[in-house]
């Protein structure tokens, strides 16, 4: 089965769960007499969602057409040619960045992220990469801090 059908099944499940949550939504006592309830629209939406998901599921699969998207879009059939490892590496790095941003500080975390991402993509000139990353992180930190006035802790917790 094609990927889009699997996604349709996923949406179907989501819409059913959502519909159930909407149906059992705890209404406040005075809300019960209102015409329009907080769960009116969610219930309509879940119904529509189930309908469309079923339509996608039951529609005949289009014949694989050779010409892709105008942008030369990506095609799952060629996934072996893609750098899946690099993509997963970067996603993992982003998660690490999200988790370390607060404790380690903006500049440290950003520099580490940029160098790590460059390394994952195959950059081996570490000195240049660290320099570029540090300058980039400092510039953005300064802009956000001074121009936009949003506080970002620059350094690890034990230094600032």
């Amino acid at each position, binding site marked *: 089965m094609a990927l*889009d059908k699997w996604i349709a099944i996923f949406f179907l499940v989501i819409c059913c769960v959502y519909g159930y949550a909407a149906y059992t939504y705890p209404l406040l006592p005075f809300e019960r007499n209102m015409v329009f309830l907080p769960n009116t629209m969610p219930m309509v939406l879940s119904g529509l969602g189930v309908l469309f998901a079923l339509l996608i599921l039951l529609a005949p699969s289009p014949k694989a057409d050779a010409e892709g998207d105008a942008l030369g879009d990506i095609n799952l059939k060629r996934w072996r040619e893609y750098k899946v490892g690099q993509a997963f590496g970067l996603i993992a790095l982003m998660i690490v960045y999200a988790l370390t941003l*607060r404790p380690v500080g903006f500049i440290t975390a950003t520099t580490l992220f940029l160098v790590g991402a460059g390394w994952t993509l195959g950059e081996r000139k570490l000195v240049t990469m660290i320099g570029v990353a540090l300058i980039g992180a400092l510039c953005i930190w300064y802009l956000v801090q001074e121009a936009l006035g949003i506080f970002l802790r620059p350094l690890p917790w034990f230094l600032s």
Partner: protein
Amino acid sequence: MLEGVLLGLETALSFKNLLLVVAGCLIGTLIGMLPGLGPMSIIAIMIPVAITLGDPSAALILLAGVYYGAIFGGSTSSILINAPGVAGTVATSFDGYPMARQGKAGKALTIAAVSSFAGGTVGAILLMGFAPILSSVALLFHSAEYFAMMIVGLSAIAAFAGTGKVTKALMMTVIGLILATVGESALFNAPRFTMGLTDLQSGFSFITLAMALFALPEALYLVLDPRRAESDGKNEAIKDLRITRAEARAIAPVIARQSVQGFLIGVMPGAGATLASFLGYAVERNIAKGEEQEEFGKGSIKGLAAPETANNAACTGSFVPLLTLGIPGSGTTAILLGALIALNVNPGPRLMIDNPSVFWSVIISMYIGNAVLLILNLPLIPYIAKLLTVPRNYLIPFILFFTMVGAYIGQNNATELLLLVGLGVCATILRFADYPLPPLLIGFILGGMMENNFARSVNLTDGIAFMYERPMTLCLLIFGLLLIFVPAYRRRRARALQQGVALGD
């Protein structure tokens, strides 16, 4: 109207706003030129900056400048390295790239800039005429009509999603609407569907969603398939930017036709710059005679001028529904709408009355933006084009970093980053499976408004009687349904014809 124009001039010509137009156009061109980053990603990245400006006209002026710049930058990369960063400039590469290969890159860039300028300017003039008329009609709208209008907008976006994608686009719209119901809303007393997570109490952040849907998948695609960003020729020096008088005469009628046609296509919700540029190219090829028609695809100046004029005119046109009805017609205008709402401006027919300076200064700054692109960017292009040689190993980490910073400083919350990564991975998978993403964002942005208007009409008529009691609502709703069903019906008929099934009369 003159009063409004003058007010707009006053706001737009202030030093700060002029600076913002110039900055927006430059940033847009710079980033738009990078393959794989379209206007939607760029505007999404720029939104935190725009919102912190605090002044809605300034923010919209900056973002509109970025929008134009991105489209122009996209044409530059399609002409120079045949790597359109934006779907709207794919048609530009049909004739622009062959011209560049023949050593006429400079000429091609000039034609692109002049046609964009003309298309954008004519579009802005038409917008000045159209928008007030449409807003005066829209002032008669009640919440019932608004609700119906949003249905029309959403179905139009789904209907133009492309063959075989209509159901998927509808599905994405519904998902967007569902995402919009998460969190607290204006109408009710308790947060909904937060699954007990306090981070979802105020709902999904629109910036995070925009980044996750557009910027992140593009960056991941660049990682997965490095060839998307590769140039297949070396960068030759760009020289001789002049066009001859004969060439100017040849493309003048093309520009005139395409700026009007492009604008009208842009006004329709869901059609947008991509459709306008392809249609403009096709129309001009069919109009051209004999030899000239042969030239198309091999470096015809008409074939370059047509899509360039049309896509810029369409960009301007897409502001009409945004400014007058408050309904975005494309992913990009949806992002702009989100930014406006964040700045406490409610686009719609009242915008012209309540915030005339926002309304008119945006229109005026469109002229200025177009002029900036022509005067400032064109001479700078040979230098800006150097950016195309930034190695991938440096480019991608920075793109990822910018998307994350954008999401982070909007909320100052690290959970937002995890949400961004999660949604971004989902969006990438969805694009693999050919699900269109703009309907999701538009559904998300319109969701809250749609529910409010729906609730108001239901409360007023004590039920859904408003749907058939108000003629205008009924007509709009029927129109919305037709938009979805007519293409499906015609496709089915075409398929039946193909299979040799006789049509019962």
